[in-house]
């Protein structure tokens, strides 16, 4: 299964100066794009796709790996500094990163984020290298029932995000699923709840909704404040804070490892995506934490979990793309297209027919992890100054950036209006303390949930949902996830009584 000679050849191919240069350029470009809310990596990769035909296949694909990893890591910059996720996978980063920035610890948060991101990418690359050929075969066993159970598992995270007001969290999650089901249904193509608006026929566009709920809503709330940061000064968040954050990330060893491994395996499941991975890791970190009440207020544990999982998911999602030809996201879809255009067809035989290319791609992820830790930290120093810019300048300019990002997703002016509507909804949800991430997660999971439920039950009825061993294991994890907060509360009460 493992060919050492092919591994060495793959590593040798990667160490060519032109290949390394293109990874570096791709990473820098991805980093720049990821740091701008709304401009996602898939768009840039799609624009660059024709130009990659001028390159060798391996060089083309590793430069795309660079863009992909750079964008995933840099997406945490606006998430931490402005509460606007740079990529959908960074939505969970806002939960702890932004409160840290508002408390004047933006440098610490960025250092922590890049430390966790580089570790997550490194673990993801190690796992991809070790398990890639095996996982390709395992992923073939995931049918509709298993995917449905995975989607339900994702939604159980909702309960941990809104433990204090359980019904509110579930209400808003249900509404999120309903919003995600607007548009033509996959079975009969009936335009559900579109009310004659053709732009909604293909479903609810994710990027305008995301930018509205997280980005514009925050800008509306920031309008009347002087700066983003409540405390601190430009000097108090310098190199020392970034380095302290980077070092702090290394102290959460168990959390890093758990979140990275979880993120990687979520990434391996075709279609699951980094948003689910980072939210699941956040939920797990909260459930295992000794101080759950600190979550949502700038807890390093939560930020370490989301960012390590996000980057591990990004590397994990390359595995099904290579071994099954199944892209898990828009970015890996463009990567797949690039490989096919170069005459390299991914699939179960990929590791057999294109061994050297496969190992070159996998080793390039190690280079990307190193770039996150080095170049990312250097650029974070510049980026963190943003929290001290007066909102009178920042809010209007970022608002136009967000409008442009919403428009650029499908080049439809309608998406700007949609984003403003979701921005207003986001303000209401934040004001009355409803969990916005639960709403967003439900919107992402809704179509996955419905299509897999219908496919699974059409084949074997409702009982087929729990027929396979994988489904049963996931069901046990769901029950444990729901019971964990209750068990923790009981243990804490017992300890208090004994103490």
């Amino acid at each position: 299964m493992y060919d050492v000679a092919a591994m060495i050849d793959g590593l040798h191919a990667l160490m060519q100066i032109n290949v390394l240069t293109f990874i570096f350029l791709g990473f820098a470009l991805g980093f720049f794009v990821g740091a701008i809310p709304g401009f996602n990596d898939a768009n840039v990769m799609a624009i660059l796709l024709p130009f990659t035909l001028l390159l060798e296949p391996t060089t083309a694909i590793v430069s795309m790996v660079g863009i992909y990893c750079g964008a995933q890591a840099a997406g945490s910059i606006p998430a931490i500094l402005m509460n606007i996720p740079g990529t959908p996978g960074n939505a969970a980063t806002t939960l702890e990163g932004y409160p840290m920035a508002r408390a004047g610890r933006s440098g610490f948060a960025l250092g922590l984020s890049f430390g966790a991101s580089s570790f997550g990418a490194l673990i993801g690359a190690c796992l991809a290298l070790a398990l890639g050929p095996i996982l390709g075969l395992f992923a073939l066993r995931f049918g509709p029932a298993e995917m449905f159970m995975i989607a339900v598992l994702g939604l159980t995270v909702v309960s941990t995000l809104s433990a204090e007001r359980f019904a509110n969290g579930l209400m808003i999650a249900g509404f999120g699923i309903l919003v995600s089901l607007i548009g033509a249904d996959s079975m009969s193509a009936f335009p559900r709840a579109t009310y004659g608006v053709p732009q909604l026929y293909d479903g609810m566009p994710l990027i305008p909704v995301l930018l509205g709920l997280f980005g514009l809503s925050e800008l509306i709330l920031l309008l009347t404040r002087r700066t983003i940061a409540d405390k601190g000064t430009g000097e108090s968040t310098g190199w020392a804070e970034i380095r302290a954050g980077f070092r702090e990330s290394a102290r959460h060893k168990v959390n890093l490892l758990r979140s990275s491994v979880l993120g990687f395996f979520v990434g391996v499941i075709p279609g699951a995506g980094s948003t689910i991975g980072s939210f699941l890791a956040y939920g797990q970190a909260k459930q295992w934490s000794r101080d759950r009440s600190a979550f949502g207020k700038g807890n390093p544990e939560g930020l370490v979990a989301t960012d390590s999982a996000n980057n591990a998911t990004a590397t994990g999602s390359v595995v099904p793309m290579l071994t099954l030809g199944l892209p898990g996201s828009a970015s890996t879809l463009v990567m797949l297209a690039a490989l096919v255009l170069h005459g390299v067809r991914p699939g179960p035989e990929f590791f057999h027919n294109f061994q050297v290319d496969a190992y070159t791609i996998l080793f390039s992820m190690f280079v990307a992890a190193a770039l996150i830790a080095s170049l990312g930290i250097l650029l974070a120093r510049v980026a963190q100054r943003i929290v001290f810019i007066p909102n009178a300048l920042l809010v209007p300019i970022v608002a136009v950036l967000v409008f442009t990002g919403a428009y650029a997703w499908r080049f439809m002016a309608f998406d700007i209006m949609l984003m403003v509507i979701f921005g207003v909804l986001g303000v209401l949800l934040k004001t009355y303390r409803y969990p916005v991430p639960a709403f967003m997660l439900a919107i992402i999971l809704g179509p996955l949930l419905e299509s897999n439920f219908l496919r699974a039950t059409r084949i074997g009825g409702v009982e087929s949902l729990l027929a396979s061993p994988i489904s049963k294991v996931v069901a046990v994890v769901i029950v444990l996830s729901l019971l964990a907060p209750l068990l923790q509360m009981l243990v804490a009460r017992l300890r208090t009584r004994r103490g």
Partner: protein
Amino acid sequence: MHLRHKLGELIVPAIVLLGCFLYWWHIQDARAVAQRVPNYVIIFTVAMTVLALVRALLLPPAPNEEPVELPERGVLLRRLAFVAACFGYFFAFSWLGFNLANLGFLVLACVLAGLKLPGAVITALASTIVFHFLARAMDFRVPTGPFGF
């Protein structure tokens, strides 16, 4: 609890219930397969909304629950004006084009955010030029206005 707080607590559940009703109303003519999952979700969501409403209106707040902070009148008006400007941007974007919409919105938003008019005009002009070149560099097909830019 103050009446304004109580009414405020009703806003989100009211939006959710209205959304559920509009969704349910629109799928009445759809095939059963298209209604199946949405109907389950609507029942679940309405049940949770009723629970949330009972908790908000009838039960006392939890001891560790912090009260909702509502904005002052002046802050609320500025936010509403900003939201109106955002909706205005959508119409201006389609009718006047990307550059003029940006210029108009930026001047208005800068003033609402606290800049004086001369500063707002200079900031808006400089930012509009930067966005113009950014859109060109990223090859975005942004609409142009009646004056050709």
